[in-house]
């Protein structure tokens, strides 16, 4: 895929055969299973149409439609939905459903719903899709109109109802001010959607979030005035496959189809590079490197899904010990061994491993979702185990989370209180609320953060992030000296330099590497000292007393090295006023400048390390050595 990734094309599905080949494949479908296999491709409106026609032909000829499940859908929509109905039938095949669509006559939704003997009720639908759009609703009574229809349905039907939010028209007559005027289309749509959510909750309806869908692809693309005027289409025809895919997902959920386990490949998926070739220090993961951050975001997505109740498993072609090493030793790994329910790293084919995972977890193969950067592995698994969901992925791992989530693999019918209790995001929010209520002073607040600082010398694993911090930090940076990655690499082995990298975790998670210090020993006038060449800290951990913990660590190391004093220099810039009083606050005394002042306002500070008493700090300290 060289084009820009867009959910409109359903890019998580594999490419279908093209042209005459596709038409021939459609006509060759002689049973339900063949139709479903073809429907699992990235089909456009025409291709879905052709598939629906073939289903109709098979029905007529009385062919075997197993394993397809018959579902009758009542499609209650304003505007022309003749293009949508066949595409819905084609798309439902993807989810193993042989759909029959009933729809009222043109603009006859109200009559169909309100007449007690209407076909809507005599046909006894399995599911109702109440697909009224902005024009169908807000130009005919808004939420009250909707509510009347929904109430009438409730009094006569027990079938589940899918309701949809509305996308506002892109035209805003009051420009940026629109939202602030109740009668503007934006305000009306927002208010309608809010009321709809409450009502959906009350009725136990399934929600189709058209507003979010239209927003994802762009309101101006979604709403096509020409197609509306010419053909009464409720939205641009190009998005019919996407809309139908979302409806079909909900139909699939009603049949009990749900992703339960995310199976993760390792190399070039959870991290950049190959652990077996590149080694622990060579793989790309975490802050300081754009590719490394992309892979870290994939791990974060996996963790978020796990918090939502999704099981995680690993399936990788690797030696087991090698594959586990990053989980155990790499500081930027968000995923730990304990998060992984089943760890399959071996040289057997992935399909066999997926079968082993499903059987070990005692769930169906159709509950597995397999994330792998390698197109060949994906094709092999899809071929061997068509039940497993294997989303196609774009080349760039930065888009993996979007592609996986847009594929709907982890769509849910509901999110219960129990689910919410599991969810870390909710848990974290609750914890923060609890803190605000319970923290009377800053000290208690800091105590409650349960901070832990990890000190280490520079090493290969931290190099990228150290380089980034040194290259970018401007505010909490005493000297703003930039050092290249080559220089930093040289410092790792230089006994003449004392270095420190600092990571900070708290009860809300890992803040990553947040502080860097470089000291160079000197001996002048009978005194041996460490000159602090660089001291910087990420501003997101300001006010946590971390700089005091760093000072104590420097003092401890200097004492151990037999050094008498620490000498700190402040070089003012336009950006680093925040640390003007850094050294005096930490108990340093002013000293005479060393050499000629290079910058207006430069000053020097000293701290004797002998007999120094360390501070009581709310931070637990851990030391690692490389």
């Amino acid at each position, binding site marked *: 895929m060289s084009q820009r990734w867009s959910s409109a094309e359903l890019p998580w599905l594999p490419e279908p055969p093209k*042209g005459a080949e596709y038409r021939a494949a459609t006509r060759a479908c002689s049973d339900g299973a063949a139709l479903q296999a073809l429907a699992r491709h990235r089909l456009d409106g*025409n*291709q879905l*149409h052709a598939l629906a026609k073939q289903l109709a032909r098979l029905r007529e000829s009385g062919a075997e439609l197993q394993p397809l499940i018959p579902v009758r859908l009542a499609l209650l929509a304003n505007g022309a939905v003749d293009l949508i109905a066949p595409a819905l039938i084609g798309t439902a095949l993807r989810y193993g459903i042989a759909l029959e669509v009933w729809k009222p006559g043109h603009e006859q939704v109200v009559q169909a719903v309100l007449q007690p003997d209407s076909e809507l009720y005599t046909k006894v639908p399995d599911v109702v899709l109440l697909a009224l759009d902005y024009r169908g609703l807000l130009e005919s009574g808004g939420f009250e109109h909707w509510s009347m229809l929904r109430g009438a349905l409730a009094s006569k039907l027990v079938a589940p109802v899918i309701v949809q939010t509305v996308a506002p028209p892109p035209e805003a007559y009051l420009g940026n001010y629109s939202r602030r005027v109740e009668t503007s289309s934006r305000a009306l749509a927002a208010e309608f959607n809010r009321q709809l959510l409450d009502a959906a909750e009350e009725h136990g309806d399934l929600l189709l979030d058209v507003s979010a869908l239209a927003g994802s692809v762009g309101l101006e693309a979604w709403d096509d005035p020409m197609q509306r005027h010419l*053909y009464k*289409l409720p939205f641009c*025809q190009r998005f019919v496959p996407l809309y139908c895919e979302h409806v079909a997902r909900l139909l699939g959920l009603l049949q009990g189809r749900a992703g339960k386990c995310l199976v993760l490949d390792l190399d070039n998926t959870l991290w950049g590079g190959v652990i077996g070739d590149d080694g622990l220090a060579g793989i790309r993961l975490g802050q300081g490197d754009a590719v490394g951050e992309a892979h870290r975001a994939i791990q974060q997505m996996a963790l978020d899904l796990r918090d939502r109740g999704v099981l995680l498993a690993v399936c990788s072609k690797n030696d087991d010990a090698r594959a586990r090493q990053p989980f155990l030793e790499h500081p930027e790994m968000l995923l730990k061994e304990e998060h992984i329910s089943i760890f399959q790293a071996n040289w057997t084919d992935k399909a066999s491993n997926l079968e082993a995972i499903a059987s070990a977890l005692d769930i169906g193969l159709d509950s597995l979702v397999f994330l792998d950067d390698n197109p060949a592995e994906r094709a092999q698994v899809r071929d061997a185990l068509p039940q497993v969901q294997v989303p196609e992925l774009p080349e760039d791992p930065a888009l993996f989370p979007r592609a996986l989530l847009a594929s709907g693999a982890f769509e849910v019918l509901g999110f219960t209180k129990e689910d919410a209790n599991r969810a870390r995001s909710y848990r974290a929010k609750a914890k923060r609320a609890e803190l605000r209520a319970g923290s009377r002073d800053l000290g208690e607040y800091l105590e409650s953060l349960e901070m832990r600082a990890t000190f280490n010398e520079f090493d290969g694993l931290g190099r990228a992030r150290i380089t980034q911090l040194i290259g970018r930090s401007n505010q909490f940076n005493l000297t703003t000296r930039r050092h290249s990655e080559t220089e930093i690499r040289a410092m790792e082995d230089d006994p003449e330099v004392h270095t420190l990298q600092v990571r900070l975790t708290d009860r809300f998670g890992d803040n990553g590497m947040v502080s860097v210090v470089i000291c160079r020993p000197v001996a002048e006038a009978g005194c041996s000292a460490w000159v602090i060449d660089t001291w910087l800290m990420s501003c997101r951990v300001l006010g946590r007393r971390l700089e005091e913990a760093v000072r104590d660590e420097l003092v401890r190391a200097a004492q151990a090295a037999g050094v008498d004093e620490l000498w700190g220099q402040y070089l003012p810039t336009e950006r680093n006023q925040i640390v003007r009083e850094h050294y005096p606050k930490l108990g340093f005394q002013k000293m005479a400048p060393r050499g000629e002042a290079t910058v207006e306002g430069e000053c020097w500070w000293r701290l004797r390390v002998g007999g120094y008493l360390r501070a009581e700090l709310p931070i637990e300290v851990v030391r690692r050595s490389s």
Partner: protein
Amino acid sequence: MSEATIYERLTPLFQDVMDTEIVPTAVLRASDVEGWDSLSQIRLVVAVEEEFDIAFTTAEIADLPDLGSFVALIAHKAT
């Protein structure tokens, strides 16, 4: 763009949309093709817009009598 080039690019679109193997010509009429109705005509118009990277106006499409004039319209728009 010549009409011959247009027919060359239009043919696979037409066949996809109408779900047919019939090769479109200027004299082909809706009644000649089983799947050619007002709905498939919409899909054809949209497919042509994407393929030739052009946009028709509401009036142009509303007044379209047959395939030959559709091709002439494409030739006029796709320079």
